[in-house]
């Protein structure tokens, strides 16, 4: 060491002491930059008066070595000759391809650079040109010279969950059991580094938010003629599972980055080398981590679910030349026809729902209107009186009972299964809403909710089959007892729709539209109940079939088609929507909320129907009971 060097070191040491380095210097911060940069308010408003330049650096990142960059010196990224002057002069934005020095305890520093990543990007979907153009289209959030890496990355951390601190040293501290505290200093860091590479640093949702930055931006989509792929992903079964907090489901990178590839080599999906390419998709879907048992046809399932293709605004050719004016046209994404099978099925269900729920809702509203106006059937009180007189007869209650215990038990099994199916299935339809995620978490997560849903559905289907057998048994018994033809026996089943029901419906409409003063006098079951009963059969069949196809998705993908999974999903969700609407708006008001029965209809507990409802909806049954018991029904007067 010559004299000049000696003097220089003395000066350096003196200044270092003066700056307090002796107290706080860190391995990664030998220049003691954090002396100032640790403070959160170290920043300023930019010259444009809007954006903020914040120079705060979290000291915890370096002290606790929270990320792979925690061992880098500030001057590895920021040119030393620029930051050595205080106040710092204009500092050149960081170039991520610059070589830095990886410092490992007890080893000489190693040169490291991300230039290989830059090379990978040149041959990927996200070429430097694409990233640069995207930044422009986003309104140039990155300033001149800033690395386009920032479009996806910020300060990298090993883990990003709230509990990271709790588990930070958990694994390596177990090593102390045998090794005492003699582990090499960098073992915890190396462990965290390796472990963090074994699983994604971000959740699927956080990744989707990163992708949405460009892939859901209308300007970027217009430029690159892309549909809104994040929206269509979120509408798919994978996206919905992700929204409900399931990390086992497929995220963006699971499909678009193949095995042994990395995100920086991601190709456009139409490139042969892309893992999302038609030719490679079967292998991607059937990878060990996803659907190893699925058939090759699984690829036809809609991972990006679009019933109606997304559209992006595109300027007409005239507008392109003159960006100052003109009206933007809206165009569907290329290669997508609106007339897909999915669209037509969905359209059919819209018509079905309009034609079934629509009239039911109108009927319900008209019924409620009568109550609001205080309008009664002209013979309402007469029937109530008759109901009371029948009940005074020892056999009266038996005659007016509408449900046997056996039927009530079947109903309650149906009700319990239906409730469980709604609670576990409805959140999936509205997966993006906070209540849905809360409900699924309350139920124990999506895996548990799915399990409950599937087994409830199975019980429901078994119950429906049992009910069919029960009806057949009743039918045979009835045929034998009355000695009538099969046709007669079937037509006489209490819930079969007959011409008399249509007549009663017209009568009812006449009353509800103020054209008649009396209501019809249906028997044990009116047309509304028969309609609901038919709906349960229809629903169980459709929901059961599509549910089983989705449950056995591997089988379906082997022997039917992946597209059948999409179609099943669509039918399942729309039919369930119809069922829920019907049950809540029609059935629940009828059996729980209607003033006649509030707070709960007793018929399914005791078999006994309230007098007011008997008078309005089952007057025919009253008359029949009166006739059987030789009680005057008043009509003879």
């Amino acid at each position, binding site marked *: 060491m010559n004299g000049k060097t000696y003097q220089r070191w003395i000066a350096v040491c003196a200044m270092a002491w003066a700056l307090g380095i002796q107290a706080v210097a860190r391995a990664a911060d030998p220049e003691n930059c954090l002396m100032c940069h640790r403070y959160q308010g170290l920043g300023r408003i930019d010259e444009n008066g809007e*954006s903020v330049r914040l120079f705060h650096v979290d000291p915890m990142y370096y002290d606790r070595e929270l990320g792979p960059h925690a061992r880098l010196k500030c001057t590895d990224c920021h040119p030393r000759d620029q930051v050595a002057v205080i106040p710092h002069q204009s500092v050149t934005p960081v170039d991520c391809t610059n070589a830095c020095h990886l410092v490992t305890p007890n080893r000489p520093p190693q040169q490291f650079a991300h230039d290989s990543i830059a090379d990978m990007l040149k041959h990927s979907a996200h070429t430097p040109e694409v990233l640069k153009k995207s930044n422009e289209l986003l309104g140039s959030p990155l300033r001149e010279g800033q690395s386009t890496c920032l479009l996806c990355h910020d300060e990298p951390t090993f883990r990003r969950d709230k509990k990271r601190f709790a588990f930070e040293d958990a694994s390596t501290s177990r090593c102390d059991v045998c090794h005492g505290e003699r582990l090499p200093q960098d073992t915890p860091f190396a462990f965290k580094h390796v472990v963090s590479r074994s699983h994604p640093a971000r959740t699927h949702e956080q990744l989707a938010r990163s992708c949405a930055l460009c892939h859901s931006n209308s300007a970027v989509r217009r430029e690159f003629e892309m549909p809104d792929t994040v929206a269509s992903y979120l509408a798919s079964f994978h996206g919905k599972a992700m929204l409900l907090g399931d990390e086992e489901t497929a995220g963006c990178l699971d499909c678009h980055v193949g095995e042994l590839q990395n995100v920086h080599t991601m190709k456009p999906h139409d490139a042969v080398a892309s893992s999302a390419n038609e030719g490679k998709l079967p292998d991607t879907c059937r990878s060990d981590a996803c659907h190893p048992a699925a058939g090759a046809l699984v690829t036809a399932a809609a991972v990006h679910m679009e019933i109606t293709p997304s559209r992006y605004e595109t300027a007409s050719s005239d507008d392109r030349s003159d960006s100052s004016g003109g009206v933007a046209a809206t165009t569907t994404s290329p290669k997508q026809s609106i007339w897909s099978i999915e669209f037509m099925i969905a359209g059919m269900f819209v018509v079905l729902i309009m034609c079934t729920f629509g009239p039911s809702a109108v009927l319900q509203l008209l019924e409620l209107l009568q109550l609001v106006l205080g309008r009664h059937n002209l013979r309402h009180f007469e029937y109530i009186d008759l109901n009371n007189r029948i009940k005074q007869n020892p056999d009266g209650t038996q005659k007016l009972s509408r449900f046997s215990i056996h039927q009530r038990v079947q109903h309650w099994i149906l009700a319990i299964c239906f409730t469980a199916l709604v609670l576990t299935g409805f959140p999936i339809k509205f997966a993006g809403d906070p209540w849905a995620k809360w409900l699924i978490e309350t139920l124990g997560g999506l895996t548990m909710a799915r399990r409950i849903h599937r087994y409830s559905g199975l019980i429901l289907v078994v119950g429906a089959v049992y009910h069919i057998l029960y009806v057949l048994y009743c039918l045979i018994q009835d045929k034998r007892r009355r000695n009538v033809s099969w046709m007669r026996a079937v037509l006489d089943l209490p819930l079969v729709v007959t011409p008399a029901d249509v007549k009663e419906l017209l009568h009812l409409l006449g009353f509800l539209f103020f054209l008649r003063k009396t209501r019809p006098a249906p028997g044990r079951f009116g047309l509304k109940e028969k309609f609901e009963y038919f709906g349960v059969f229809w629903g169980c069949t459709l929901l059961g079939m599509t549910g089983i196809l989705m449950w056995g998705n591997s089988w379906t993908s082997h022997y039917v088609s992946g597209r059948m999974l999409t179609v099943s999903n669509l039918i399942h969700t729309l039919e369930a929507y119809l069922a829920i609407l019907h049950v809540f708006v029609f059935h629940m008001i009828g059996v729980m909320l209607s003033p006649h029965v509030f707070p709960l209809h007793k018929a399914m507990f005791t078999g006994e129907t309230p007098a007011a409802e008997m008078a309005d909806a089952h007057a025919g049954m009253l008359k029949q009971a009166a006739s059987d018991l030789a009680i005057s029904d008043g009509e003879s007067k």
Partner: protein
Amino acid sequence: MTNQGHSSTHHHGAFKGLVIRLYSLGLLIAVTWISYCAFAFLFRSVFSPKLTPDRFTNRPLQLDLATLDGNDPSRMIDDGDTAPLDHYHGVGELSFGRFQTGCLTSGCHTILPHETDKATRALANFHVTFLDCAMCHRNALTKEEGIGWKNVSSGEPQSTPALLLLVSQFQGEELPEGGDKMIELVREAIEAAPPNPVLPHLLLQLETSEPASPMHRHALARLRAVLPSMAKGDYGAIIAPKNNTGYSTNELEPLIEAYFSPKDGGANRRAIQDKIHKNVLVKPRACQQCHDAEPTRIDFAALGYPENRIGPLQNNAIANMVQQIRDGKTFHLPNVLESPTDE
């Protein structure tokens, strides 16, 4: 009596009828609304292209004041998100909104209020999170006037922030004993500090372990390791004069209102501004008044600063460095790492 009974029954019946009709009206409205929503949702979900929800697209692209103050939920950056694109270093715990006290709530000054002096504005701004504006900018402020901590939430005077007390307790070679007092301090620090998973986790460990037990000692050791990183100016309290010699809030509010009022704008505005700033030094006093071997305005020890922090804060070199910068001179960091042979 009978008539009264009949009348009562009649009234009761009428009331019941009215309740039923009103209830039915409620049901009718509910059914109408539900049916409308059901159809609207159905048509939207089938015939409208799906759009990405706002929470996926409404991310701030550039770090700006709205993002920094953290009061606008749509601009909040969740843990795990990338920072705004133009910003590299993590911003997970930033929430400047709570530091909006005094002048920063007026609507005139932002949470990064120093803008004019390019050389020192960033350095001056970082004092905002722990120093009241009056400390540098109020005329006629002396050490005798008294200085203390002011809670940023309530504006009330308070004792030394728990985080600083914790740092002081862990200065020695030996670990402190822990126990209830330590637990209470950690709890107070959690309440005062921005959301951070570290302290709650350590609090849990301290609370659920016996003092002097290995787990308790382990938690204390981890606490000692993380505390220095946490002492970064955000203590939930700021240093402020004890006696408010300027305007009280009640006096200031009408003046601010008048300043922004359109009818008082124009000619009056200047006068109002002067009135508001009657005790304000536009160019603050010299840094050495605080950062000096014997500061004339701040007694760091009395404020509860740990001993090892007081040294650097009262270091002439720092004060001189900042003063040089204020005077328009530059300051060069020593070339600590590069050996002379590197050149």
